[in-house]
């Protein structure tokens, strides 16, 4: 079954390839079918992973959950008929999934203290938050690039979507970290665990997005500056809260 978890994820990533080909060729229906199938496989992989480890938590499963949540956000944007945003976030979902596939970090066996609802909620909510942040960064970057090439000013409506995503991410991040703190308190008697540098990275991201959300109060800030800040946030999320959960470059078993 362990092989099934990784093979389902691999198959999902493989199906992203014809998705890209179909997207470049302009075959929207084909693109959508492949993407939906790939997302479904990534979802199945996550479900099997959780079931395989239940009631314990699979360590370093977050990159896989983030890949899934970014795919879900892509589908949500597409369902809202926001094609451009869907494409931007779709590109992110492919990149994140392939990175996760090639740099897996789930090499440790779980430990019994992860048998806690708080632990599972922490993992899921913090992954969803990171996915939201990364999506907002992808949208910001898209707008910056599109704005630069087209010479047009960045639209206000695009900024609202980015800000809403960041607000949602910030809310989820806060609640996720609270569940993490409650788990830590229940299990170890203290709300913070200092074993991993991931805690400081997550706290840093939280303060960065607090900075972003207060930025507009500090005076007139250009839309380009806000987009730059949002894009930078995504990079920081990737470096400080995504990379620590990944591992060495390792080709999947089927590809060796």
């Amino acid at each position, binding site marked *: 079954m362990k092989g099934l978890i990784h093979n389902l994820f691999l198959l999902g990533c493989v199906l992203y390839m014809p998705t890209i080909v179909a997207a470049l060729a302009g075959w929207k229906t084909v693109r959508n079918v492949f993407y939906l199938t790939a997302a479904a496989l990534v979802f199945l992989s996550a479900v099997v992973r959780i079931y395989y480890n239940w009631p314990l938590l699979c360590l370093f499963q977050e990159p896989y959950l983030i890949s899934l949540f970014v795919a879900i956000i892509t589908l949500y944007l597409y369902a809202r008929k926001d094609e451009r945003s869907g494409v931007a976030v779709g590109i992110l979902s492919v990149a994140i999934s392939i990175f996760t596939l090639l740099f897996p*970090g789930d*090499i*440790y066996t779980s430990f019994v203290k992860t048998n806690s609802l708080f632990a599972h909620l922490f993992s899921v909510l913090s992954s969803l938050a990171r996915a939201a942040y990364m999506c907002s960064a992808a949208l910001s970057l898209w707008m910056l690039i599109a704005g630069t090439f087209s010479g047009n000013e960045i639209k206000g409506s695009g900024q609202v979507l980015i800000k809403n995503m960041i607000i949602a991410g910030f809310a989820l991040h806060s609640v996720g970290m609270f569940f993490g703190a409650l788990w830590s308190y229940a299990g170890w008697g203290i709300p913070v665990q200092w074993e991993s540098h991931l805690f400081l990275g997550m706290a840093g991201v939280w303060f960065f997005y607090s900075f972003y959300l207060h930025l507009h109060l500090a005076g007139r800030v250009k839309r380009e500056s806000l987009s730059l800040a949002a894009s930078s946030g995504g990079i920081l999320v990737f470096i400080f809260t995504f990379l620590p959960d990944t591992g060495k470059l*390792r080709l999947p078993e089927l590809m060796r």
Partner: protein
Amino acid sequence: MPKKQVILFIAVIYAILFSACDMGNFESIGSFTVKKQKSCTVVSDGIGRKFMLVPRGEKAPENTGGATVIYTPVKRVIAFSTCDVSFLVGFGILQEVLVGVTREKKDWTNESIRKAMDEGKIVFIGDSTLINYELLKSVKPDIVFTWNAAIIPLLEDLNIPAVITNAQTAMGLEAQIKYVKFVAPFFHKEREAGVFSNKFLKTVEYIKSKTSDVQQRPSVIWGDVYNKRVLVEPNNAWVAQLVKLSGGKYELDDVEGASCLEITIERFFLAGRKADIMFTYRSPKTGINTKRQLAIDNPLMASIRPMTSGQIYSPKEIYYESYHRLDEIMLEIASILQPEVFGVPHYEFFQKLQ
């Protein structure tokens, strides 16, 4: 806000912060700490329990800050770990202070320990998982050095302090080298400990200087497979750091945590397919002296590269009793990895499985 006021405000904060700090002579050795104070030394063991080492004849301060008082030099000690016993050998005080061990006479290679056990000076108090507490009580130890925290409550009932000598994360190279400085204050052997750690540090510098230009770096893994469970030394362990310094490449360099860390079989096999050299945990005492015997005992290991075309080394019993000769152990590991640089290994501490 005027700059001067800001600077003054920050200066006041730091003044308050640093006034709470008493520099003292503090040294951290991995998870262990040693802090010399005016009239005593305060140490903390592998799980953070504090001990106040007070010289015999002096009075312990009224406020010990929750630390257990131990009068030094310790005259009677029981040691679970061969590592701690080896430092007593190194300090030259084995016969005077060691009164109990958890290995039978036949399991020791050190002649002075075997002789002392024959004479009844050192008592086998039972296997570490099955201690004879009556026997332990009868040898009247001042302290017990142990890795097993579970015996703390029983020893507390007997008013015998237990010092935990292992930690939750694997000891790095620097911590392993300096660990002798944690043991030394119990026996007033700080000077000797300084000599040992300087010798070990010089060996590390020597090894580093000789391997800086090495081109061919063999891939190494350190661990074993037991009943489908894989236990390895993580990247932060001293052996992994030594491998890297000695001109090797540690294949499990993304694994962090405690010593004998459990990882997935898939991760182990990924490393095993690339490794040229493997060090196991099993000593010849387990009866495994050849690759074939290892493969029969554990078929899962039959396909890894050290088994098929590389080298496998297992530590001899003397390895576990020779932490006071850490410099020689390090040189032997270096010579196994880079024989052209350090010469052919003497195989005093490791055996090569044929």
